């Protein structure tokens, strides 16, 4: 098991390298450069900047230089926020985004899984019908609609929570964004859990566990639930990566200083190291979490257990 995990971990590096190379190529093949929009710069200054950041070098050399830095944990300087390195920028934004993402994730789990289980156990009856309508509605409400609506209701209408803004340690500021981010995930989780549990509840081994008189709770927990969790787990991996690295919309709607804006603004500004840095963080997280999902699979289902 451990050797399998280590082997898989080593296998992540080439994938990460391919992703990086691809992203680098896409980024650099786009027209324009990082200093085009700064009209105040004289051509002389611009040329100096270009040289200082090594942008006058051939691409392969720039790429190798970047990789060498990355190997030492150096993400390079930001080309726009020139007083900061990319590492500093990410170190500022990621804690906010990650806290928000973790809250949203916890909310989604706490809400989605029990609702999904309840819906499956009461399939085609009242509880299930209500939950189906609710989840369908939530799934059709994109974050840029649900965010402003929540702000309107709880912020402006009822005045319970701040509409936007951020103070370090201010949990109140996180409630609405976490709801916005977490509710649709909860809805999707609930549907996934319901469908998958319904499927296993029909399985012969569940009926045979019932026939052994094991009692409804034990049949659910020990026999039906573990296999039903498989599709849920494989959805959770990439979703957690997505939530933690920051949602652009939610952060901009609620004015949170997270990492969500780095990627888009970085791409518009041609801030190459910033964009690549974010991709490294996101891809590493995604790949790691997918690996975790695979390992969890083995734990839930001995048939895919790895030697």
């Amino acid at each position, binding site marked *: 098991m451990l050797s399998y995990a280590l082997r898989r971990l080593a296998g992540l590096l080439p994938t990460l390298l391919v992703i990086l190379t691809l992203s680098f190529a896409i980024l650099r093949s786009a027209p324009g450069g990082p200093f085009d929009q700064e009209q105040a710069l004289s051509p002389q200054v611009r040329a100096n900047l270009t040289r200082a950041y090594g942008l006058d070098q051939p691409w392969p050399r720039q790429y190798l230089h970047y990789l060498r830095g990355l190997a030492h944990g150096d993400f390079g300087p930001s080309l726009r926020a020139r007083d900061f390195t990319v590492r500093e920028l990410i170190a500022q934004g990621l804690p906010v985004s990650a806290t928000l993402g973790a809250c949203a994730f916890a909310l989604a789990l706490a809400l989605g899984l029990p609702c999904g289980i309840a819906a499956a156990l009461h399939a085609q009856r009242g509880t299930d019908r209500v939950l189906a309508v609710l989840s369908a509605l939530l799934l059709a409400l994109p974050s840029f609609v649900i965010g402003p609506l929540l702000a309107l209701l709880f912020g402006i209408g009822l005045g319970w929570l701040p509409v936007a803004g951020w103070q370090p340690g201010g949990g109140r500021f996180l409630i609405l964004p976490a709801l916005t981010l977490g509710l649709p995930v909860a809805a999707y989780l609930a549907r996934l859990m319901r469908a998958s549990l319904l499927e296993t509840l029909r*399985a*012969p*081994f569940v*009926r*045979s*566990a*019932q*026939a*052994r*008189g*094991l*009692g*409804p709770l*034990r049949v659910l927990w*020990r*026999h039906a639930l*573990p*296999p039903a969790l498989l599709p849920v787990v494989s959805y959770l991996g990439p979703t957690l990566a997505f939530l933690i690295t920051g949602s652009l919309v939610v952060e901009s709607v609620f004015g949170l200083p997270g990492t969500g804006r780095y990627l888009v603004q970085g791409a518009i500004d041609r801030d190459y190291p910033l964009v690549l840095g974010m991709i490294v963080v996101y891809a590493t997280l995604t790949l790691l979490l997918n690996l975790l999902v695979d390992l969890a699979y083995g734990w*839930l*289902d*001995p*048939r895919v257990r790895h*030697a």
Partner: protein
Amino acid sequence: MRPEAQPLLSLRALTVRYPGAAPVLHGVDLDVQPGECLGVVGPSGAGKSQLFLAALGLLPPQAQVSGSARYAGTELLGLPRRALDRLRGGKIGLVFQDARAALTPHATIGAQLAEVRRRHCGESRALARRHARDLLERVQVSDAARRLQQYPHELSGGLCQRAMIALALAAEPRLLIADEPTTALDLTVQSQILALLAALKEGGGLSLVLITHDLGSLAGIADRVAELEAGRQVRSGAWRPGPAGTPAAAESPPAAGAALLALQGVSVRHRLPGWRGPTLEAVHGLDLTLAAGVSLGIVGESGSGKSTLLRVALALQPPSEGRVRWDGTDLASLGAAALRGQRRNRQLIFQDPAGSLDPRLTVAEAVGEGLAVHAPQLAAAERSAAVCAVLQAVGLGPELLARHPHELSGGQCQRVAIARALVLNPRVLCCDEPMSALDATSQAQVSALLARSQRAAPLTLLFVSHDLAAVRALCHEVLVLYLGRRMERGPVTLLHGAARHPYTQELLRAEPAADPAVERARLAAVRPGEMPSALAPPSGCVFRTRCPYALARCAAQVPPWESVAPGHEIACHRWRELPPGG
């Protein structure tokens, strides 16, 4: 009813219906007396399983159950869940069809057994573990300590069924209900399971209910039989054999023609998935010739390589080693188009008739497709005339032409599949267990149809089956396979008492007898043993691990392929010393 014998289980006017449909069961009355074995038989869809699932509250919630079901005087219908759960598993054990699917896949056998002991007998974890081992030994599982640690997917079908029986017996119930406990198992394993059930019943005053579609399998074990048809009980009483199902034996073969199909030194190996997955050898260095007009039956348990052999013979899969010749031409030397062109000579009938038909094509389209490919010059009218003619030949009317597979019964589907093959006038018809998915009536019809086609056209059958009666009826020669290797080949008289190989004899002994006394004796003499994994075949003679006559020599040397008599060959070190029989 005699006053002293209160029935253990008593069903009265039991009716089951689903909303918006006709009832599945119409008021069935049934009693199970203490210590007796009741057989419940009927064709699929007769409601046999529903009957007992309904009594135990195991039907889906939308099912409407009425009537009465009493266990030792306690009414089960409407019993609170808690009380019902004390009876289910505690007093009444249930064994399901397809045990591997009925065992929880993510728990070890030991954990599942211990769970029942703790639940119903209130035992500690350690004590329950110890009893789990005793239980496995009671159902004659060898190496019980290791099996306790294993998961269902690591066990063979027969072992899974034993584990399932152990689970049902775990809390020492008084009644065991087994729903098709031997269906989909090899005959040899079926006999073992039946023998085990018979021994359990004799040993401990256990009452048995055996639900099956196969009346014949009950001869040696059932005290009484209740027959169900379309949700109604049609008969009840002592076991008596069903309508004689043994079809006429195959006619003697015409003078053997030239070798149509020849396999030389064929081996087939599969790499199993996974990192450095092991290699499984499904067929090992096999030689085989099929002469025109001499139909050959291939028999052996599942895992013996029968189906792989068919796929290689049909060039659906290239052999890893060896050659396949058709009419003297090496199939590997043909280009893709040439190979396709001569496929019409060798056609295939599948085990799963509905699955072998494209759900989106009508009967006319399915049967006509071969003509469209191999005889594109035919006009549409000529083609549909040919399709109608062949459908008539397989006994299907023109009203089925526009139907889709889901609108046909299993037997009709299989006849469409046969028509699809016959319309091309093939010279060899390969059949892969063509009857095993059909009910008894359709089986007889398809068997008769194949026999007729064989006579009407110069058609040679290559017939893979575990059903020895069907092989006797349709084939002139028999080849016995075990772990991908030939054990014995000879005329069909092999299956009538001339068998020399211990494995062939073992297969013959696994056939249920029609006389209850004989069958009882047969079950009492059933020997344990299952086919080892093809991943690690035994050294020397592969059958030696199950062979009652094995000597040290059998482990050391692979037996040579020797001639017993003209047309009768064998691979066994000791065939000269052993008596023929079966």
